[in-house]
């Protein structure tokens, strides 16, 4: 059996800012056999996407393939002219992009987009292609396959769109499928369904697939072989089992270490830190907040959370659950509709500008996207200097040395203070954001998904830094994340949000142990583990695909989780208000079921 795609000694160059060409892929060799999935792993800039795209003889604008051979189905792609290559793309090799939402044209019906490549290459009549598409929808577990083709992209969820991307790529039955981080933008619970759909499809069609990702745990579920890349070179290649259990290369080992930080020790219970005894820096009491003027969309409903001094409160939930909104309400950026915010027991105005300077100083916020959270026209010195001027007030020389100190605190060289944000990497920008928050010497920092926009390794370094700062400076965090394992490695107290409501909260150890809220249980079981048989186990044991991605109307009565809940009781859970079940140490679960029933 010969390889579907055989890339040998590939060299790709990109035009640098100076105009000269610099190699970004250096001597990479990858080959994939039918029915096999080969994963390319590495952080951004490692050349993994460039390598994957070259399998279609495609290079991004500004890049060029300068050496090596690329053989697809026995033909050397580099010897073909543009027109012959165009004929191949979409027919023999198809591409699934990271963001399905951006890859679909919002003005064209789904069906026409899915069968586009069969139409372009005139492989089959339109009606046949649409019939084939329906079969693909069924294989991908998409809802209502018969009518799906007539819908528009905005009428389906993100996870469904991502699966439709796969349908689009598979419609012409290509020999090679290139998947570029297809689940990175998805929630953990959605990720599972998309992953298992991909896996079934690839096995079923005997397609060869290249899977590009930075997430080792995801790769463990789907790949047969793994190629680890860094700075355009192959660091290590081998069977999935071998790479995961016995990584040889040092870089692979750091990647492995960064994937899933080990949960924080579970022995917190013994400390006897009864929550009410601690001094609360910030607390919110039955906050309801939303957007829009006339027709309000309620995003947070009746949420109460408190951050004790020097402690880490983790807020977890999937996208759209209102966790970022909570941070914005506390920071005074979004006035709440009802409920109160307290700072050391004192009620706060709901707009930042009306708060006193000392309150503003004590509550700092760090946002998710480092690129847009820093003004690109301000130098690092100005970014760090402004909060110093505003909240601390130092002489010119003291200010300067304080900026140096702050840079050292976030482990950046002091020479960075003359740089513009454009001259920093994503991780460095996030460090500057942290330093900017620290400059005010706050009591609490609201961290809104501070690592989600970063690579695993860089993200782990930021988390380590946060832990260090907490230990040394005693600062508290409200740590918002969709990644349960990050929160579990770090938080003292966990708040689980679903559809704008707190479904469970309590000390980390109690939340991670039974009794669970059904949603917490789903979240916990959805975090990919570094076992190659994990996905199959989860899919076999759980009805994960049911009702996934359904829009939740948070203003409805009853339990918001009703439609996805495995243990829901009809006519109770969807009709009556959810009771709050209290346990010791402030552990609460909002569920109609008795605690004993949730233990199982």
């Amino acid at each position, binding site marked *: 059996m010969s390889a579907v795609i055989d890339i040998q000694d590939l060299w790709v160059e990109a035009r*640098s800012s*100076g105009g000269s060409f610099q190699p970004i892929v250096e001597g990479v060799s990858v080959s994939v056999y039918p029915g096999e999935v080969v994963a390319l792993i590495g952080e951004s800039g490692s050349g993994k996407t460039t390598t994957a795209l070259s399998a279609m003889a495609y290079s991004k604008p500004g890049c060029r393939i300068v050496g090596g051979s690329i053989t697809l189905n026995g033909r050397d792609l580099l010897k073909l002219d543009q027109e012959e290559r165009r004929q191949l793309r979409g027919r023999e090799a198809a591409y699934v992009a990271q963001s399905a939402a951006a890859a679909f044209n919002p003005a064209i019906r789904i069906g026409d987009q899915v069968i586009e490549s069969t139409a372009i290459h005139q492989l089959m009549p339109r009606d046949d292609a649409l019939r084939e598409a329906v079969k693909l929808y069924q294989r991908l577990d998409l809802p209502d396959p018969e009518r799906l083709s007539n819908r528009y992209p905005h009428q389906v969820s993100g996870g469904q769109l991502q699966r439709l991307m796969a349908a689009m790529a598979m419609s012409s039955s290509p020999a090679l499928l290139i998947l570029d981080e297809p689940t990175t933008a998805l929630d953990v619970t959605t990720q599972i369904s998309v992953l298992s759909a991909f896996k079934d499809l690839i096995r079923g069609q005997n397609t060869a697939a290249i899977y590009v990702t930075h997430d080792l745990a995801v790769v463990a579920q789907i790949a047969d072989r793994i190629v680890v890349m860094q700075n355009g070179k192959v660091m290590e290649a081998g069977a999935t089992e071998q790479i995961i259990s016995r990584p040889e290369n040092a870089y692979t080992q750091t990647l492995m270490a960064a994937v899933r930080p080990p949960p924080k020790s579970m022995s917190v219970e013994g400390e006897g830190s009864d929550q009410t005894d601690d001094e609360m820096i910030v607390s919110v009491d039955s906050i309801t907040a939303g957007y829009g003027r006339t027709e309000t969309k309620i995003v947070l409903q009746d949420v109460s959370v408190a951050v004790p001094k020097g402690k880490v409160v983790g807020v977890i939930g999937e996208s759209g659950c209102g966790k970022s909104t909570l941070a914005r309400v506390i*920071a005074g950026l979004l006035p709440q509709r009802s409920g109160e915010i307290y700072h050391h027991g004192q009620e706060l105005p709901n707009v*930042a500008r009306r708060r006193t300077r000392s309150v*503003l100083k004590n509550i700092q916020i760090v946002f998710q996207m480092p690129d847009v959270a820093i003004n690109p026209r301000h130098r690092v010195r100005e970014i760090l200097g402004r909060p110093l001027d505003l909240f601390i007030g130092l002489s010119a020389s003291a200010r300067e040395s304080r900026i140096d100190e702050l840079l050292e605190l976030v482990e950046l060289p002091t020479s960075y203070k003359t740089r513009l944000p454009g001259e920093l990497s994503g991780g460095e920008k996030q460090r500057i954001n942290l330093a900017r928050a620290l400059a*005010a010497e706050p009591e609490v920092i609201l961290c809104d998904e501070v690592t989600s926009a970063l690579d695993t390794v860089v993200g782990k370094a930021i988390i380590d830094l946060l832990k260090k700062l907490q230990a040394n400076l005693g600062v508290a965090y409200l740590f918002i994340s969709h990644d349960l394992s990050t929160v579990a490695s770090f938080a003292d107290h966990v708040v689980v949000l679903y559809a704008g409501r707190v479904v469970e909260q309590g000390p980390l150890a109690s939340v991670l142990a039974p009794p669970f809220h059904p949603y917490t249980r789903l979240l916990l079981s959805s975090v990919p583990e570094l076992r190659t048989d994990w996905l199959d186990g989860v899919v076999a044991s759980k009805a994960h695909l049911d009702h996934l991605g359904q829009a939740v109307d948070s203003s409805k009565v009853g339990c918001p989780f009703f439609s996805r809940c495995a243990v829901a009781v009809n006519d109770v859970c969807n009709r009556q208000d959810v009771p709050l079940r209290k346990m010791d140490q402030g552990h609460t679960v909002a569920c109609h079921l008795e605690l004993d029933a949730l233990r199982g």
Partner: protein
Amino acid sequence: MSAASQAPSETDLKTRFTPSLIIGLVIVGFWLLVALFGPALAPHLESDIVTDMSYAPAGEVGLLGSDYLGRDVFSRLLYGARMTMGLALLVTLLSFSLGVILGFIAAISGRWIDGLMSRINDALMAFPSIILALIVMSALGTSLMIMIVTVAIIDSTRVFRLSRALAMDISVMDFVDVARSRGESLWWITVREILPNTLAPLAAEFGIRFTFAILFISALSFLGLGVQPPAADWGVMVKENLQGLLFGSAAALMPAAAVASLTVGVNLIVDWFLRRMGGDVSQELMN
């Protein structure tokens, strides 16, 4: 920040100075020199009648011949550079001050004020600008002052739109939220957070608006409402000597060519500027 700011380590002169930029700089530089020193170098005054021959061919009278009154076209072209470019600069500066200030106010104030300002702006923009200028100037008179203010206000509607849109885009960025969570005043946010990020597109727009202003003033002068004779303006010169085309005179073509070359020159610089601001393509590709 001035002393410590350093140039990026890698400076490649090839990409910094493209051929089109150099051509643009040469053309604009040339006309700037002419505007500065032209009147001093001109062999005659702009109103001097140097021959009784209308439309004398080039070389016979002066460098570029004479116009319909027998004045030296070359001298008038030199004088006209100052008048035309000076007026355009004044108009553009005025329209930008007005447009940017009002645009930013609209962007950061509540929806009521913003709505009101934007609708008034839309109403002004709905008129063809040349007709609007004609109406205003035939009502108020044709002095230079009135023309400058009228053209500037009409032009500022375009600037208003752009700066309002730019400011709105930036005011929703996270770093503005960071500033707001720090309790910064609206003034600080506008001037320190928003304004620096709008400078690049605004500067590019300034170049384009500058050439539009030249064309607009030339058009008004051509219609007899702008610069009044005997003052030399390139637009006036085209209008005066249009008849000369019938006699094969270049008196109307020379100022037209001057307007065209200046427009091309400024736009070459603007294009380069926009490309530079567009960011580094290859760096984005590395991700």
